[in-house]
């Protein structure tokens, strides 16, 4: 599903943010990518979104070489990947319904699909009653749920979550993680970048650790140790 072959990325020549990273994530997996600030986690997410190009190496998603995707085809590629950001990145002047519907508008979905899918998705994340609220009227946890609903409404095969609990208190963080677990149980491959070790330890999933741009450990589920 996701394959990185000796991928390196340097913002400044000679100083790699990611250094010769190789990893393989299978369909339906739930994977944590952990590491300190500046270890290269966010660079990895940006490479997977094709927001950045690797300096060296190849990235394959669903067998497709990202380097071979033309600029005009990038939007189509991105529609197969749902992304959840640490700071939610919702459109502040639109309500909950419009923020989620926006992801469907972007792919030019028919209005009847939008009317059917958005309420379903909002029910799934527990926000059906707040569909008219603006982002600033919601708590951090609720905003993150809207972001998750927006990321999933197009039914992507992969969900990338960049520090999804970074701005949340413990209770909200756990609610979000359980939601991501439910989504994974329905077949979506989930990749979560985080530094919340308490959650990582408790969830017993595959954990890839990045340090100074390089993969230093890759342990599956119960094998994870601090």
């Amino acid at each position: 599903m996701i394959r990185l072959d000796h991928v390196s990325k340097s913002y400044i020549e000679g100083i790699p943010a990611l250094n010769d990273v190789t990893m393989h994530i299978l369909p339906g997996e739930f994977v944590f990518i952990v590491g300190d600030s500046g270890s290269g986690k966010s660079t990895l997410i940006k490479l997977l979104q094709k927001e950045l190009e690797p300096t060296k190496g190849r990235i394959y998603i669903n067998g497709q070489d990202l380097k071979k995707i033309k600029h005009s085809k990038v939007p189509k590629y991105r529609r197969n990947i749902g992304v959840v950001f640490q700071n939610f990145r919702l459109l502040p002047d639109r309500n909950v319904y419009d923020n989620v519907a926006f992801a469907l508008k972007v792919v030019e979905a028919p209005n009847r699909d939008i009317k059917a899918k958005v309420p379903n998705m909002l029910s799934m994340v527990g926000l059906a009653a707040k569909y008219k609220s603006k982002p600033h009227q919601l708590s951090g946890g609720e905003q993150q749920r809207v972001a998750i609903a927006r990321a999933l409404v197009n039914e992507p095969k992969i969900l990338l979550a960049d520090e999804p609990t970074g701005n949340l208190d413990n209770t909200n963080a756990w609610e979000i993680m359980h939601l991501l677990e439910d989504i994974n149980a329905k077949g979506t491959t989930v990749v979560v970048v985080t530094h919340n070790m308490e959650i990582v330890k408790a969830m017993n999933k595959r954990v890839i650790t990045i340090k100074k741009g390089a993969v230093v450990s890759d342990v599956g589920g119960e094998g994870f140790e601090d």
Partner: protein
Amino acid sequence: MKISTFFYNFGQGLKNIWRNKMFSMASIATMSACIFLFGIFYSIGTNFSAMVKTAEEGVAVTVFFDEGISAERIQEIGDEIGKRPEVAKYYFVSADEAWETFKVEYFDGNEDLAAGFADDNPLANSANYEIYLSDVSMQPTLVSFLEGLDGVRQVNQSEVAAKTLTDINSLIALIFMSIVIILLAVSVFLISNTVTVGISVRKEEIAIMKLIGAKDAFVRQPFLVEGIFIGLIGSVIPLVLLYFLYEQVVVYIASQFNFLSSMITFLPVETIFQNLVPVSLILGLGIGWLGSRITLHKHLRV
């Protein structure tokens, strides 16, 4: 692109104008100010051109013929004059007509003096063609052509009048073009600055759209609709203002400066607006569209 997507983006563009009220108002004000100034200079320039044109129409070249020339040759000379592109109109003035006009001008009140010439036209050799030019700057070319014609004795011209009018025309064209170029440059600079500020505030929104899979065209459309509408409103407001102001100013000048009304005639507002409306609308729409497009370009590389 689906029709529903087009209407969605059209609606979003209009909503964006409201959502970004301050930016929209700043852009509309900038655009209005520039087009208002353009309109003022256009009105002044067009009126001056019309006045010069009227003056030009009064400048004539007169062609006199050799003694004993045949009527056929005079006719041929007339035909050749008529073929010249710079000639607007020409009249044949016979010796008798010339004498009649002379009598009225110079013997007014002393008709008995003129009567002394009763059967002897002193202007017997003064039959001529009176030629009016469509472009007075072409007068020297026409004069040298006329002087080269067989049967032409003399060509009278008002060199000073023609030169003065040509110079005034060139000066007006130069001043008008310079002002228009400066205004356009200032408008584009001010508007692209305002658009840049407006778009940089919404950089995040554009980035989100791109990251969830929006095509460039989808992101661009609402901004273009916004730019075009701002351009449209920004050109309609000054046009309406100018329409009412122009009439007021013309009436004011006519009433306050009586001595001017005998020298100058203002064009009717409809004549001015015949060109000013399409030019201003195209400028407004064009600058709005181009400003949005150019400024957006660099933000789409996400």
